């Protein structure tokens, strides 16, 4: 025990703390900030994208709310009180025997049915389940294709043309194995607006372009 010295260890502790906070807690992250700002500026700031007029409309990595029938809708969200809160991420954390989860899914199904009277009978499960982050920006291909009849009717264009846009925006598996095939909802909706006119003006634009 004679070699244990509180004084020596306290001195080392104090010096090590100051040095390591300075290097690991301040210098390291700020250097990464600077370098990544130079090399990958757009990603470092949040991968924001803009519409045709150049107005920033959101991050391509984060879900945002869509309610217009002429747009693809993302998965339901448990982020924040009303969903899609990008400053309050999170899942529902409802368990596999949760009555609340079952009721919520049944409500979602009723809503989706009402909004999509022409869609196939079985709804892809991701459309009634909330993601882990509440900000899942993607849909599976079936999840997007299921919504095509609604969008085609709202935009007065054929279902094939909408489905072709989905196919054109498909992201495959990385290296052919990692992850799942998917489409990014915001990018898909921007593509719809580019091809068939902005959703708000769909009645005129949709017909004209046809």
């Amino acid at each position, binding site marked *: 025990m004679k070699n244990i010295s509180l004084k020596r260890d306290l001195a080392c502790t104090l010096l090590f703390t100051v040095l390591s906070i300075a290097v690991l807690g301040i210098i390291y992250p700020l250097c990464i900030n600077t370098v990544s700002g130079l090399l990958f500026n757009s990603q470092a700031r949040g991968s924001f994208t803009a519409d045709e007029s150049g107005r920033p409309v959101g991050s391509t990595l984060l879900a*945002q709310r869509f309610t217009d029938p002429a747009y693809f809708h993302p998965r339901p969200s448990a982020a924040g009180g009303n969903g899609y809160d990008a400053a309050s991420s999170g899942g529902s954390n409802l368990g596999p025997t949760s009555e609340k989860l079952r009721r919520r899914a049944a409500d979602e199904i009723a809503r989706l049915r009402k909004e999509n009277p022409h869609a196939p009978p079985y709804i892809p499960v991701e459309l009634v389940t909330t993601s882990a982050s509440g900000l899942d920006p993607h849909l599976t291909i079936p999840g997007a294709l299921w919504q095509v009849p609604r969008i085609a009717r709202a935009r007065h264009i054929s279902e094939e043309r909408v489905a072709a846009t989905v196919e054109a925006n498909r992201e495959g598996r990385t290296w052919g194995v990692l992850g799942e095939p998917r489409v990014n909802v915001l990018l898909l909706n921007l593509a719809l607006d580019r091809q068939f006119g902005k959703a708000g003006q769909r009645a005129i634009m949709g017909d004209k372009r046809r």
Partner: protein
Amino acid sequence: MSIYGWVQIILYFLIILALTGPVGNYLYRVFEGERKPLPRVLGAAERLAYRMVMVDKDREQTWKEYAFSLFVFSFFCILVVYGLQRLQYFLPFNPQGFKGVPPQLAFNTAVSFVTNTNWQAYPGESTMSYLVQMAALAWQNFVSAGAGIAVAFALARGLTRKASQARGATIGNFWVDLTRSIIYVLLPLSIVGALFLVSQGVIQNIHPYREITTLEGARQAIAMGPVASQEIIKELGTNGGGFFNANSSHPFENPTPLTNFIEMVLIFLIPAGLTYAYGRMAGNKRQGWVIFWAMAVLFMAGAAVCYYAESRPNPALAGLPLDQATGNMEGKEVRFGVAGSTLFAAITTAASCGAVNSMHDSYTPLGGLVPLVNIMLGEVVFGGVGAGLYGMLIYAILAVFIAGLMVGRTPEYLGKKIEAREMQYVTAYILIFPFIVLITAAWSAIVPYGISSVTNGGPHGLSQILYAASSAGGNNGSAFAGLNANTSWWNIVLAIAMLAGRFLMILPVLAIAGSMVSKKDIPPGPGTFPTEGFLFVALLTGAVIIVGALTFFPALSLGPVVEHFIAHAGRSL
């Protein structure tokens, strides 16, 4: 289930298998080798650090000195992390103007990060300033991981040093091990990895939260922050504390299947490499591979069961007009799918990382059982950086002891006798963990201030409690996150569980190192039980499973197991 899912799981394992040797060699060179890597750059930084911190790198410590240095440093770190959280309002890098973190939550968080647990009773993006995230939490991600690696090498030295090389009864120098783990391993890898993550879309800035108008004209406030620099060390150091509440499921932390894969590789990188480094220290690489394969068997079994269970439909949605071909998607992200989510879940709980890319609380009963069991096995299935190796070596001593009992000989490990004293330490190590977990869980499950935090009914509520207690005691940090953990009871009791799960368990580990290091070598004889073959892998996995199963099976049967039967009877609660 799909062939792609299985290929992902197998590809992951093969990559870890391929990296174990090179990483192990590197770790061995850093900690035990005569010639360290990159002497001009890293060596110079190392020498400068010793000068500034006033450490004599050639002065080794006995196990008591080593433990004392570790404890003094760790408890001081708790004070610093606590203070920074309390004072964040008055400090820079707080563009959102967050107020000081309340005392109990700040205490819980400070303990959580210093013990390498990273249990999070707070949502990051609405609680912590950028300064706290960078200089308190991410800082601890480095140093608590470094401390874990240090203890693993201390134990490995105790077991492998021949009496002739032993310098007195010393097992290394804590400050030297800590410094080396940061300068040679954690920091360089973090710099490269953070830049890679940013290139993939992980954000890295110190801007205020950005408010935008969405395509439909609604407002959306978007949290910002220095995420990549923290994300990388969170995986590499098996810490697991997310910048955001949603942790690695948040697209700003884990934007693509590729980042997901890399993050998973980073979690196992050091724990796997350490087994190989240990083999080199033992002078027989097979001693390391035996440890690796015992871990690998347990890991692969868990990953396979979890993937299978989650590929099934969610029982709560049974009978609804849904196409459930994609499996249980509640609490999972589309880009990862069930395979990328369950593999992450198995990895993060096997290693005591605790980062999550899906919400374990919403897993099917059997799918959620796997992460829970992984933690309950004592975080030895690769385990936390350092903690996994030292935990598994304790089990190795136990396995040798059991084998010794069976043939009626004094057990020996690596040519050193295992005697009553070591077995007392081993027993203490093995009993402390279930003691912490079961007492915490049982107490919480019968008092109103414990139960009131539960958000799912029936057995799933008990699973939430069990998971929290195991996660804290095992220093994992993941959660069945529905549990409302930010209450006085949970903040305090889990902080105590985390402290005990870290420091009460390090104590016997270092004590074993100290008592083994100066033991005489015994040349292996015909009665020596070989610890380097298939038989020992089986014995070691058996010891881990039996101890875990005997201890926790009754509790598990009341939680996930009952829930499985309730779910399959078509009932919801």
